């Protein structure tokens, strides 16, 4: 289709303006259904996955719908550790391992007599379900006290992670860049050489994060009720920090933190004859001139704010 002939070498401004108005009006009318048709037409077809059994687990691979943009991996485990590391690929490779099996003989029978002469069949049996929709992948396994399954995943280097485990589990991430939310209850969180942002919280355990790179301008928070909070940042970090070491903790930092000038937060209560003055615990300051808010909080533990390379 050749470019259409113009009316004259320089069409009048009025004529051009009327054409723009008409084109804009048509664009507005056609935009919504056109976009829907485009997004539908461009979504690639799902590829089939394959699953294989290993000695004490199984492996399988699941692709993201659109590998051209970072996907999100969500793993929620009641029991069983989670290990996620980056690799230079487009799919997510899972390996689920039976961590331990507990003899859960609560039916009252004496099974030793019934097992006599038989040997254990060690093929692990646990159900796993992975769903993926619009680049959000979610794994659920029936990991339990009697059958604890740990999840090992290799993900594309740029992947957002939402990982959570509750009992007797550690949560470990290596080398992944993205918007990460890491939550544990009885166990530690370790994120090494990660990039992007991290919001991490555990109740009983350490939070240890080492950043290879940061996404500028994004708030973050690190907290543990009973454990240390140990975070290493690039030397170029610019942030406004809020630090609360609880009633029992201490704070150590390699950065120069300039206190934010504000009236001392005091609470004065007059009760009968005396007065009680309480000075608020949280400290606030800026690093390298200030930036997004980063919060560090523990109740029983020490806060370490480290500078990479030191």
């Amino acid at each position, binding site marked *: 289709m050749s470019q259409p002939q113009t*009316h004259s070498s320089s069409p009048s401004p009025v004529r051009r303006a009327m054409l723009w108005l008409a084109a804009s009006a048509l664009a507005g009318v056609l935009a919504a259904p*056109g976009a829907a048709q485009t997004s539908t037409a461009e979504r690639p077809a799902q590829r089939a996955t394959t699953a294989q059994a290993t000695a004490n687990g199984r492996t399988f691979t699941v692709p993201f719908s659109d590998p051209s943009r970072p996907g999100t991996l969500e793993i929620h485990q009641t029991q069983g550790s989670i290990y996620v590391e980056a690799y230079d690929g487009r799919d997510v490779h899972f390996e689920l391992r039976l961590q331990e099996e507990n003899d859960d003989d609560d039916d009252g029978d004496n099974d030793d007599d019934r097992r006599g002469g038989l040997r254990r069949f060690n093929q692990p049996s646990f159900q796993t379900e992975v769903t993926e929709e619009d680049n959000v992948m979610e794994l659920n396994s029936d990991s339990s006290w009697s059958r604890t399954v740990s999840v090992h995943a290799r993900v594309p280097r740029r992947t957002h992670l939402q990982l959570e485990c509750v009992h007797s589990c550690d949560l470990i991430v290596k080398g992944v860049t993205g918007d990460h*939310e890491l939550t544990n209850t009885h166990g530690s969180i370790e994120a090494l050489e990660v990039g992007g942002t991290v919001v991490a919280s555990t109740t009983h355990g350490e939070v240890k994060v080492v950043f290879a790179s940061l996404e500028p301008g994004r708030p973050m928070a690190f907290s543990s009720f009973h454990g240390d909070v140990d975070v290493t940042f690039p030397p170029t970090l610019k942030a406004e920090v809020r630090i609360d070491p609880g009633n029992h903790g201490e704070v150590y930092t390699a950065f120069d933190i300039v206190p934010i000038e504000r009236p001392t937060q005091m609470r004065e209560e007059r009760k009968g004859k005396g007065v009680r003055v309480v000075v608020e615990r949280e400290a606030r300051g800026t690093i390298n001139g200030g930036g997004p808010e980063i919060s560090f909080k523990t109740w029983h533990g020490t806060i370490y704010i480290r500078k990479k390379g030191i």
Partner: protein
Amino acid sequence: MNCEGVHQRVADYLTGDLPAGEALELRSHLEICEPCRSELGDLSDLWLRLGLVPDEEPTEGLRERFYAALAEAEATERRGTRPAWWLRLGRLLGPVQGPRWAVAVPSLALGLALGVAVSLYWVGRGSEVAEMRQEVDSLSRLVTLSLLQQDSASERLKGVSFGRQTAPRDERVVDALIAAATRDPSINVRLAAIDALAGVRPTPGVGAQLEASLGDQSSPLVQLAVVEYLFRSQPTRQREITRRLLDEGSLDEAVLEYLASEAPQI
């Protein structure tokens, strides 16, 4: 090039102003997109019809009217400047009250007029400033509420930061912060929201909602933050609060220890 790119470039394409490379991309898209081909067809038809509309020609009398107006303006300039209106006003009064009044009266009138004008201006500005502040607050509220709905915990933390600034003036932001403090999936966002609420003038409603949520707060850090908020917001009722919380069955042991340690001082 996608449909949106075609929509943005179709007018330049029809007028022949689109660079060759983009024109080629546009034509490639048209080969596979029927809706865009149809749109181009409609606009091409319009373009041709616009070309048939004759250009506007000046009327016969325009030239004569223009030169007549120019001549009059030049004549006025040659006759010299007329005295300013306030001097003419003064001359009107001069023969009655004396020459000094010729300056004083118009000056007084001018001063009065300026004073009224300035007063009206600043009153208008004051209401303009109030309107602008409302617009800014409304925008901040929208940003806060939107950020608090994001999937990313970091974005929700940003929403709490925004909320910290507008909450003192906006009940809807306070409600959103209470929702974040009691129900957000992230412990860290809940902690940040409770801290943000501490900057708002305390009301019994906020404290009551946070206290009611204690039974659903599994994190001892959040429970402690709620307890500290209640103590801070109602300092004269700490004894009553402590007694009530000690009877609360779902508090973590560490929180109970903290309450017990605070009790002797109360």
